[in-house]
């Protein structure tokens, strides 16, 4: 059965605390910390972008997969922060991991669910036998407008998955997608920062699509929340995943291993995929995992995975996601953050 053959994560080491951002804008730090369960977020260095993080996460996935990169027939990079407007991120990635030239490559964009879109397509191509292995990456270096609520959460990271039919560490038992046209968050061409519909981003957007996709995949698979060991929901803030979990009948215990957002922020296309890598890191053979992404605009992709015996052989072959999150981090102040994120206007 087709499934995940290798997985890898990458998180830059810079962090900025919610208090540090709130101090600059005269905002209420305890409100963000308690209300949204956000403490700090990752920040890319000036020499890091969606492509560099996608390459590092993919190299980690390759270490776990232990396959010849030339056998990868499809490479997809999902992001809302591709470094070029025109010129694919996927070509750089495919070249860097030595998968070129016999490879199909595309960049995907769908707010925070571009990563799982790539997973859906790569998995499907493997299932129908069009490619032997398919690589899908969710990666973002997202930006919120200075002072906007999104600035407290918009973070950077990448997660990569190689799908195949042999050496599988997590079998893909079921997939399901739930999509409608919902203008809850957008960014027009040539605009630097996205805009969002404020409170509109909750019920008709995040909650409707995640519950729609979760209920859909459970019905399709004939399963219930109690059948799962772990569940990962998209993490725009700390609170939403727990609330949507409660609505669906999942427990905190099922959510927590993949819940990274309070110390990581919202890594957009990498958000639920990184939650999946952290969950795989602590999973045992036979464990059942549900992942449901969410992307504004809007849609959710859901996958059911069953962990295989091979998981124990591959875990230690690349850095674990919690270690990337908790070790070797460095705190920066708002001035350095503004410089790194190019929020300071310099002379030409």
């Amino acid at each position, binding site marked *: 059965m087709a499934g995940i053959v290798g997985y890898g994560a990458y998180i830059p080491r810079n962090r900025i605390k919610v208090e540090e951002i709130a101090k600059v804008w005269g905002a209420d730090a305890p409100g963000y910390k308690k209300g949204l369960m956000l403490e700090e977020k990752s920040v890319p260095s*000036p*020499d890091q972008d969606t492509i560099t993080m996608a390459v590092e996460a993919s190299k980690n996935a390759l270490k776990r997969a232990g396959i010849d990169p030339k056998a990868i027939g499809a490479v997809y990079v999902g992001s809302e922060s591709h470094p070029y407007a025109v010129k694919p991120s996927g070509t750089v990635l495919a070249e860097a991991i030595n998968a070129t030239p016999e490879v199909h490559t595309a960049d995907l964009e769908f707010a925070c669910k571009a990563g799982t879109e790539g997973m859906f397509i790569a998995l499907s191509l493997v299932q129908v036998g069009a490619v032997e292995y398919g690589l899908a990456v969710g990666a973002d270096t997202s930006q919120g407008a200075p002072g906007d609520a999104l600035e407290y959460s918009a973070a950077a990271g990448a997660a990569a998955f190689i799908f195949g039919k042999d050496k599988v560490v997590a079998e893909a038992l079921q997939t399901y997608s739930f999509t409608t046209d919902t203008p809850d968050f957008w960014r027009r061409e040539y605009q630097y920062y996205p805009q969002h519909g404020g409170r509109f981003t909750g019920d008709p957007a995040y909650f409707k699509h995640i519950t729609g996709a979760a209920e859909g995949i459970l019905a399709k698979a004939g399963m219930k929340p109690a059948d799962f060991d772990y569940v990962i929901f998209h993490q725009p803030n700390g609170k939403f995943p727990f609330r949507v979990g409660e609505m669906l009948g999942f427990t905190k215990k099922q959510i927590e291993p993949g819940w990274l957002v309070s110390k990581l922020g919202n890594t957009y296309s990498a958000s639920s995929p990184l939650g999946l890598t952290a969950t795989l890191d602590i999973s045992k053979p036979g464990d059942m995992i549900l992942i449901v992404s969410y992307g504004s605009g809007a849609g959710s992709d859901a996958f059911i995975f069953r962990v295989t015996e091979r998981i124990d052989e591959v875990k230690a072959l690349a850095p674990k996601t919690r270690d990337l999150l908790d070790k070797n981090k460095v705190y920066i102040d708002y001035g350095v953050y503004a410089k790194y994120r190019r929020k300071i206007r310099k002379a030409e």
Partner: protein
Amino acid sequence: MPNPSKYWREIPQRYRLEAGKCTKCGFIAFPPRLVCPQCGNRKFEKTKLADSGTILTFTIIRVPPHQFEDQAPYAVGIAELDDGVRLTAQIVDCDSGVLKIGMRVRIEFRKIYEEGAAGVIYYGYKFVPA
């Protein structure tokens, strides 16, 4: 700095650290060469450099070329990779005081240089603490 066509020709080295290994004496040439400087052999097989090593020496650049002004001060060092090859690269993600000779590093894929806001972005390898 490279122009796009020079950069493009060097992609195998910049992205994947592809080197040539002398089929006679095993000398590893990076970048690849036509003639082995050790034994004069002209046959090489493709190999990939080790992705970690040890810092042999380094310097801190405080007055950088114009394109690197934003990054100053920054470290550039030579590492002996685990396959014995010596490689020069920028050392990043490394706090001052931590950086020292003998430090273990590994190679990460990073942006090296961008031709302004509208030009090509050049990617390549840098050292980070292992």
